[in-house]
């Protein structure tokens, strides 16, 4: 096994282990920290798979920005911090469905003859990715930018304090 292949399996093991931990921790801060480990190892996985630009963006955007936003919201809202893993009773039905899905996916992956092809060790230049992104997929980039602007405007509107009138409850026991 080449060093790159060994790195792939190491990162994959870290990724799946941290994902299981994030899915089962009851304390939201612990879950977010495990999610940061998931996104960092996913970024490393992409770099091993010859995609350094998406890998670095993964670390910057997901682990750096989105997860810090989640941590910020946890601290802003003061979420109750449980401890230890989730009670197993809540996991039974989703885990059964998930195991069935996983078996089906593995069967499909195993049945595909192209799945057995060994991946080459290659590295795409970030400039080439940018050229494809802005030449071929400029319309998608514009659509995403409009979507991000809409999300920004909505977040500003929702996050703004009310200028007048009584607050309307939107959910929960108070509603």
């Amino acid at each position, binding site marked *: 096994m080449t060093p790159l292949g060994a790195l792939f399996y190491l990162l994959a093991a870290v990724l799946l282990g941290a994902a299981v931990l994030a899915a089962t921790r009851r304390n939201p801060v612990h879950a977010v920290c495990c999610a940061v480990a998931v996104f960092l190892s996913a970024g490393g996985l992409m770099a091993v798979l010859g995609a350094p630009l998406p890998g670095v963006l993964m670390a910057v955007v997901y682990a750096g920005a989105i997860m810090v936003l989640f941590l910020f919201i946890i601290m802003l809202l003061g979420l109750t911090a449980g401890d230890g893993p989730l009670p197993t009773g809540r996991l039974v039905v*989703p885990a059964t469905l998930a195991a069935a899905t996983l078996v089906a996916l593995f069967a499909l992956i195993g049945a595909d003859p192209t799945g057995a092809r060994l991946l080459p060790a290659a590295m795409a230049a970030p400039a080439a990715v940018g050229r494809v992104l802005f030449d071929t997929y400029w319309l998608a980039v514009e659509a995403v930018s409009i979507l991000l602007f809409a999300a920004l405007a909505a977040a500003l509107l929702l996050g703004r304090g009310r200028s007048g009138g009584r607050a309307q409850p939107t*959910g929960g026991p108070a509603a």
Partner: protein
Amino acid sequence: MNVPLSHVLAVAAGLFVIGGVMAASRRSILLILIGVEFMLTAGSIVFAGAALAWGNIDGQAAIIIVMGLAAAEAGLGLALLVHGRRGGGSVDADGYARLGGDA
């Protein structure tokens, strides 16, 4: 690199399923959103593996577009959560049941 494409797909399938379990079994909206992010990341890993297997760089462009979508989704979801919480709502997804009748 002695890694077949099927192993990349298997890792992505595992992450997708774990994200699905997280989105289905958690009560806090915040952790449901993280589960959805895991599922999107699994899709991105498949794009990276397929881009390498077929020597086609378009998959890497798709990863960046998916990343933009995920950022918009997370930002808007968290803004809605803060809005609902400020209006006296709860953090639990089960708390938003006004349309559910008396069940």
